[in-house]
């Protein structure tokens, strides 16, 4: 009687233990497996995945383990039998599926797939500060997932990615690309001829379930010629009006909601000898950047988007209004703006000699580094509009270490990766499934940006590669830079109309 009871308990406990281990096993990256008798790779695959075809995954995973821990066997020939007592590593189904997305028997990189090791060359223009720290955090996570791979950080500084693109493009056509490279999400990808040089990531999106965790507007932006070409790691906001809180408090001002408010404030401040709004345009993109924010405000989200798809003609009066606003702003800016870059001009706000500036939210990193307690608001007319840009990573077809890329892309899109990266970079995760506890790790500005991201209408930034193909961006930039000197609204609008016609034909 007692024995039976004991037996029942033991069986129950045993069952529980099995269930528990299954549960844990599913959550863990994989499991050890010691062959009890002589077997074959395909048999093992059949046993764990119900599919012989998964032998590649078992072989690749085991050989990778072997590099770290020689007690795992090295499988050199998949055809040979596996001896009894040999230790193998069985990856999770998710790992195996991701692996086999690139590592199939006809693949160019199949040998590297099976034996692991090698490098992962990551090319970006994140060379300094929080950006570099965020990238390093992504590398840490990657190394945990793929300890056999040596990560090579190939950065190219200069000009917000301009120098970078000039280096990467010829390398891509020369058939010598990095394994993965930074790319603004959106139409910037057109400049890389993705149909020819990049690998579509649709299957990976499905495997990782990204089509469910990235917001719909972003997914729309990522789609070019019907495919995904990059994995977004972050979201930046382009339209932010930064203001010196102390000056606003001193004159009893509040951030302007309309351009009429703005110019009233500007007159007050100008009379006090303060530069009401400051601009730094030494890079040639900063004034066009401010203009895209103005344009989003005067046109509203739907019409602004329509300008870039051809649904709204550039002859629309909201374009005229935006140009008139910019023209008027030029009466209030610092005269030396051609000598200052987007960041050096922020010294005005720090010194209290300038009151406002329109710049993307990477400026927050500058203010924090310099210890400036800065105020922020959407520029007039853009409350509820989030002009967004996103950095993503791509997968060149000719990537020399293609076998090591899927895990990298998975890290970029993962929650863990996005939180670690964005906390340091000063941007927000592209994913929408961030919990309140996770959100609390971000600084107050970023928390407010996350609220807006979830709530606002999302429209693409043009200057940062989201809204238009690169040649159109160049034309747009050129027209605005001409306008700064010529101040001819009609002429500028005509030129914008022609640029749109050329790009959309």
């Amino acid at each position: 009687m007692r024995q039976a009871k004991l037996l029942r308990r033991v069986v129950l406990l045993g069952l529980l233990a099995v269930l528990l281990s299954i549960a844990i096993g599913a959550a863990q990256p994989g499991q050890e497996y010691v062959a009890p008798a002589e077997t074959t790779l395909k048999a093992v695959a059949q046993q764990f995945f119900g599919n012989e075809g998964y032998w590649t995954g078992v072989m690749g995973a085991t050989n990778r383990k072997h590099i770290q821990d020689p007690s795992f066997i090295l499988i050199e020939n998949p055809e040979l039998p596996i001896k009894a007592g040999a230790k193998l590593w069985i990856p999770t189904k998710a790992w195996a599926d991701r692996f086999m997305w690139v590592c199939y028997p006809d693949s160019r990189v199949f040998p590297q797939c099976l034996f692991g090791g090698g490098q992962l060359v990551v090319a970006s223009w994140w060379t300094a500060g929080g950006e570099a720290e965020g990238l390093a955090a992504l590398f840490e996570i990657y190394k945990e997932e793929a300890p056999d791979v040596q990560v090579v950080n190939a950065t190219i500084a200069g000009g917000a990615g301009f120098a970078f693109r000039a280096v990467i493009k010829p390398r891509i056509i020369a058939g010598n690309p990095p394994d993965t490279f930074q790319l603004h999400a959106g139409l910037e990808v057109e400049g890389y001829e993705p149909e020819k040089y990049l690998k579509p990531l649709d299957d990976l999106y499905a495997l990782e379930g990204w089509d469910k965790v990235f917001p719909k507007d972003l997914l729309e932006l990522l789609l070019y010629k019907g495919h995904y070409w990059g994995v977004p790691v972050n979201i930046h906001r382009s339209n932010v009006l930064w203001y010196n809180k102390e000056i606003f408090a001193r004159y009893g001002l509040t951030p302007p909601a309309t351009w009429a408010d703005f110019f009233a404030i500007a007159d007050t401040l100008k009379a006090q000898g303060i530069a009401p709004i400051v601009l730094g345009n030494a890079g040639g993109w900063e004034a066009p950047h401010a203009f895209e924010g103005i344009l989003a405000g005067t046109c509203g989200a739907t019409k602004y988007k329509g300008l870039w798809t051809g649904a709204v003609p550039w002859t629309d009066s909201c374009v005229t209004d935006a140009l008139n606003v910019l023209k008027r702003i030029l009466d209030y800016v610092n005269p030396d703006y051609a000598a200052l870059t987007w960041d050096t001009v922020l010294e005005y706000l720090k010194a209290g000699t300038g009151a406002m500036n329109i710049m993307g939210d990477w400026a927050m990193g500058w203010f924090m580094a310099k210890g400036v307690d800065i105020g922020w608001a959407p520029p007039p007319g853009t409350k509820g509009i989030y002009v967004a840009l996103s950095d993503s990573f791509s997968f060149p077809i000719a990537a020399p270490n293609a076998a090591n890329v899927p895990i990298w892309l998975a890290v970029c899109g993962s929650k863990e990766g996005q939180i670690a990266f964005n906390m340091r970079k000063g941007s927000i995760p592209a994913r929408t499934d961030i919990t309140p506890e996770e959100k609390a790790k971000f600084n107050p500005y970023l928390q407010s940006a996350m609220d807006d991201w979830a709530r606002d209408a999302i429209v693409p930034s043009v200057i940062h590669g989201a809204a238009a193909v690169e040649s159109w961006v160049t034309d747009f930039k050129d027209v605005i830079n001409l306008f700064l000197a010529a101040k001819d609204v009609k002429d500028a609008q005509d030129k914008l109309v022609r640029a749109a016609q050329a790009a959309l034909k």
Partner: protein
Amino acid sequence: MLRVGRRFRGERLISVLLFLPSVVLVGLFVYGFIGWTGLVSLSNWNKLSPDYTLVGFRNYLELFGHFRFQIDMRNLAVFTALFVATSLLLGFLLAILLDQRIRGEGFFRTIYLYPMSLSFVVTGVVWRWLLNPGSPQMGSAGINQLLERLGLGSLKSGWYTDPKIGIIAVAIAAIWQMSGYVMALYLAGLRSVPEELREAARVDGASELQIYRHVVLPFLRPITLGAVIILGHISLKVYDLVVAMTGPGTGFSCDVPAYFMWESAFHANRFARGGAIAVVLLVMVSLLIVPYLIYSLRREARV
């Protein structure tokens, strides 16, 4: 010339073989590539990978109608005129002054000429800083501050940030770099004037000024021509200085065709337009250089 004996037939062949690699390399890299660029300029290559579909002179027509190119050509004309004329005048002035049996001539010469040994990038970096105007809110900076302190505040300027004179600021830096070179050329020319000629003129009772006008200046004429050619072709090609110093500037007030070419081809994937700009540059330089090359070699052949 050497007589060609039988034994030297083989030598003749070797001499051709010695010269051949250079001829082939230059032929390919200069003439071959120029032809290739010409082809690109007539093509429809507007994406990353080459596309040699010919479209006739469409790229040129579009280019000549492009506002940025028109501004660039205007800038280039202003820059060239200012740079060449001022460098010549300044170089000539310094050479004449240094020719007056100056104590410490070598010292002055070294100082006037050293900018020539620097890269345009270094020049650009320094002059960007020197000509940073500052603002009423932050105070004057650089040269403007110096002028203020010297009581010359009325000479303050926006320099390269002022769209009306942007390109002039770039020219100032270029003149700083190249005027010493002109000085060196003229000085060498002045030194080659035979002292007997001057002496003879003096005996005839000519004043120093007259000697310069009637004896020395004719000697310097070919040097002036050479200097105009050298400065002119440097000016037409100017690129590094603009990149390092100002970029295209407000309203493209500092932009030049060479900059537009690089940006078109290597940033915007508009290789066809880049090729067209390159051909225009080449034609301009050739108009200057080819007659000069022919002239120089004819002269040499005569001597």
